[in-house]
């Protein structure tokens, strides 16, 4: 089986497990909750399902059509993707720290991530149109090198920052709610990774 077909098979299996697991977990959680679902929650869930199915439709169907020949990675898309990552990272981080209650209850986190998610659905569509499983097939060697360096920098910097935040939280100078820790980690990683990639791409 070619690497591309292997990757497609793994992706399908992971997707099925995620959908089934999500339904099972959702039902289990719903069974324990006593509160009535608000209209906002209902609208959010319907929007979320629509967005997920739209992303899946775009990924599975469009690369098999004639439009696929227009799917190309270029310098502008690479730069735009990482600028979007920076914007989403800053927005999410600010929202997570300043509006801890709001970002979780209003699902603001998911809305911030959706835009960024669609850019990378497009990257996946380009890969599928090229019948390739390797990102190195759509990026040149300098871009791959820049991404590797950015990933290393991100790992180190995010670990240091979270360690500092832990000590600050331990001494109760500034505390974050349990759920907010993941959002801070996610948006910090997104911001530093996208910023570093763009920095190395432009400066080196």
């Amino acid at each position: 089986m070619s690497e591309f077909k292997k990757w497609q098979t793994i992706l399908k299996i992971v997707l099925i497990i995620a959908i089934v697991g999500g339904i099972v977990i959702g039902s289990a959680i719903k069974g324990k909750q006593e509160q009535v679902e608000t209209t906002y929650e209902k609208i959010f869930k319907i929007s979320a399902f629509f967005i997920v199915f739209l992303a899946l439709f775009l990924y599975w169907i469009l690369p098999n059509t004639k439009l696929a020949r227009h799917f190309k990675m270029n310098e502008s898309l690479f730069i735009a993707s990482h600028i979007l990552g920076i914007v989403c990272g800053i927005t999410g981080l600010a929202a997570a720290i300043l509006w801890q209650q709001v970002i979780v209850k209003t699902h603001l986190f998911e809305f911030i991530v959706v835009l960024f998610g669609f850019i990378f659905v497009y990257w996946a569509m380009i890969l599928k149109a090229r019948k390739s499983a390797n990102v190195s097939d759509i990026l040149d060697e300098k871009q791959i090198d820049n991404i590797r360096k950015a990933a290393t920098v991100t790992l180190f910097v995010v670990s240091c920052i979270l360690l500092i935040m832990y000590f600050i939280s331990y001494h109760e100078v500034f505390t974050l709610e349990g759920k907010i820790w993941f959002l801070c980690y996610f948006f910090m990683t997104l911001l530093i990774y996208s910023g570093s990639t763009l920095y190395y791409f432009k400066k080196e």
Partner: protein
Amino acid sequence: MRLGNNIRRFRFDHNEMSQEELAKAIGVTRQTIFSIEKGKFVPSTLLALKLARFFKKSVEETFYIVEDVKSARR
């Protein structure tokens, strides 16, 4: 020790080709060509061979080692 190159000169000798045109011909981004010309990015052997082949030159004619002042004094 750095890697120098004659890519910019070859580009101009080649009907004043732009970095963008060269990048498209080789299959890399314009930024990569810019970084190579400035000596900020060292291309892989494969990319160096592609660039040399494009200009119908040898790799040694396209790239060279720039000795820095300290190693030159030694």
